[in-house]
């Protein structure tokens, strides 16, 4: 730095500093992502084969994928959809119905067997996975008219409409519309012949595949002109429209893409449970869980929703064991456990609600953007310490450049 001053050259453009920070962050991201992927690939069989842990791992991946998919629409466009379980449930029901009608997979009545596709031999247990993308497509098709209607409205009315549509779907499933859903009795999936602890592995890898795919799509959207249009909608929809962004088409397509993934995830989830009910497939708690995860990690970021999902699921896992211990040791908890018949859902709800409040008030931007901000301001401070000779103007320009870089990153 001193040499520049001596030569009377202008100080290096401080935006480069922010650019450097961005590159470092990108390298971190790629390395971290690959490491995570490797860990995720070997995790269940190698590290922890016990059923409870892999069960939670399946859920963590499921919510990671789902929150990523949710983020493609809600995070990028700023339209918070609180009825995403509509498509999750639709996907689950679609797969159950298809397996039943077409006798795919290991049916209870003995029908359905191994199938051959393109000279590949596919065992009956794995056959339902082939229909998962189709279930996703059906969910996407369902999302098309819903999105078209709901996106007539803006912001808060939109949120309300998505909630209303979600409850319509729950009612439709309960009312056995078109003899498809069998009402509150629910539907049975084919019964895989896998034994524990292997049982969770196929679902684990299916969820992982969907997660990777969703992440790839999310990354592509984030770095494409299309994604730029979505972000423009989030920032100022009318101005984006004025500048020639086809806002209606952009919003609707993002809505359908995210519903497609939700449908696939719901289908795999349903198969892993072997049965699906209106109350569990269309669960209002899932709607808010997604939003919680995305908000916690960072709305509109790539890694945020996954991070949020991992934290929430991990917390749930630990919470269970803590609760059991607490109920044994604390008299008032023991009493309430007896009162509610060992039902811990009350505690879940309280913890969820409290966690959500904490996240919104302490980390309103989410973990990932907050960390990025700290990292950038640390870089800025460091460069100031190392370059005391730079001009006053440059010192003032740095935070601006950092801010601009942040805005570009979202």
């Amino acid at each position, binding site marked *: 730095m001193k040499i520049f001053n001596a030569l009377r050259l202008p100080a290096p453009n401080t935006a480069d500093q922010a650019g450097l920070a961005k590159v470092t962050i990108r390298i971190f991201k790629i390395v971290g992502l690959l490491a995570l992927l490797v860990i995720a690939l070997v995790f269940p069989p190698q590290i922890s084969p016990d059923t409870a842990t892999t069960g939670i791992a399946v859920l963590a991946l499921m919510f990671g994928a789902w929150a990523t998919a949710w983020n493609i629409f809600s995070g990028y466009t700023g339209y918070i959809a609180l009825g995403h379980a509509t498509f999750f449930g639709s996907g689950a029901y679609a797969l159950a119905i298809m397996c039943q009608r077409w006798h795919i997979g290991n049916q209870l009545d003995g029908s359905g067997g191994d199938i051959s596709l393109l000279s590949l031999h596919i065992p009956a247990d794995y056959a339902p996975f082939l229909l998962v993308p189709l279930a996703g497509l059906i969910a996407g098709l369902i999302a098309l008219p819903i999105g078209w209607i709901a996106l007539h*409205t803006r912001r808060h009315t939109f949120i309300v409409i998505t909630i209303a549509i*979600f409850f*319509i779907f729950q009612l439709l499933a309960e009312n056995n519309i078109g003899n498809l859903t069998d009402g509150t009795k629910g539907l049975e999936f084919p019964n895989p012949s896998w034994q524990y602890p292997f049982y969770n592995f196929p679902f684990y890898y299916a969820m992982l595949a969907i997660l990777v795919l969703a992440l790839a799509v999310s990354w592509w959207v984030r770095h494409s002109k299309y994604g730029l249009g979505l972000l423009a909608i989030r920032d100022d929809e009318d101005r984006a429209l004025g500048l020639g962004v086809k806002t209606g088409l952009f919003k609707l397509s993002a809505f359908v893409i995210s519903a497609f993934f939700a449908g696939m995830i719901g289908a795999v989830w349903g198969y892993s449970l072997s049965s699906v009910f209106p109350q569990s497939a269309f669960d209002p708690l899932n709607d808010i869980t997604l*939003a919680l995860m995305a908000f916690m990690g960072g709305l509109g970021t790539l890694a945020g929703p996954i991070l949020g999902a991992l934290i929430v699921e991990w917390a749930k896992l630990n919470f269970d064991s803590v609760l059991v211990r607490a109920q044994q040791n604390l008299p008032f908890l023991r009493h309430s456990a007896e009162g509610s018949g060992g039902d811990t*859902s009350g505690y879940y709800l309280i913890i*969820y*609600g409290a966690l959500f*409040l904490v996240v919104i008030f302490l980390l309103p931007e989410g973990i990932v953007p907050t960390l990025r901000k700290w990292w950038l301001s640390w870089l800025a401070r460091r460069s100031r310490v190392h370059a005391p000779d730079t001009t006053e103007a440059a010192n003032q320009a740095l935070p601006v450049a950092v801010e601009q870089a942040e805005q570009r990153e979202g």
Partner: protein
Amino acid sequence: MTIYIEAIVVGVLSGGVYALMASGLSLIFGVMEIINIAQGALVILGAYLSYLFMQNYHIDLFAGLLLTIPIMFVLGVIIELLVIRPLKRERTMFSILVTYAVALIIEGVLILTFTNTPVSLHAWYITASIPVGGFGGQPFYLPYIDIFTFALSLVLLGGLYWLLYRTEFGRSLRASMQNRTAAELIGINVERISAITFGIGVAVTAAGGMAFGTTRPFLPGDSYDLISRLLVIIVLGGMGSLRGALVGSLALLVIGDVTAVVWSPVWSSTVFYGLLIALLLFRPQGIFGQREGRKQ
């Protein structure tokens, strides 16, 4: 013929109760641009409070309201101070998430306190009914409670009207409703108005909850169905409009009850939701709502 008249009468009577609950929601939105997702859970909480006083102290349901309404008012003010006021940016969006969290906490507390088994409210006027005459056919029987709760709703809605349009406080409140910043500029303490408005909006759920609890056995999870109905009512009527809340509730209940008679009870909500969606295609702002302007 009689069954249609009965369906319409019952629809109007229960519509009054929903109007009360929805007006609280609409009032809060109108003044603060806050959507209180916890309204459904608060209604259930109100019902449980009535149950508590009835079961433990044998207080009559209507007399119990003298206790539960102030309790719910204070609770509303506390919620406003704790979680609504700290919201600084994108208040509408964040209010939905924050009040959803509040709803979850309330539901959790209710499950821990009262368990997940349904309870019901008891009083002589819930089971007794009076015949309502003829219209050229068989008379039908109306439970006293329907008439009582409708009257209660009318009284409370009338009180709300009086408060809003005949008092100094109401004038300040309506000023805040029209333009928050301008109201602040002419010296209205908008923060105080907001806290009180939230309190009032929550206080009506005490009465609404009691009325809801008399119609059927309830449990903590019922709040979801309720909040979706309330939200739909205010979206239909136009958000922030009290007239809209009234018209929306009557439409929901009358259409629902008539569908139940003509077709089948399982379709009553679905038909209404379908109509709502059809309406929103043509009037996204609802019946009495104002079209959302461009906001910077």
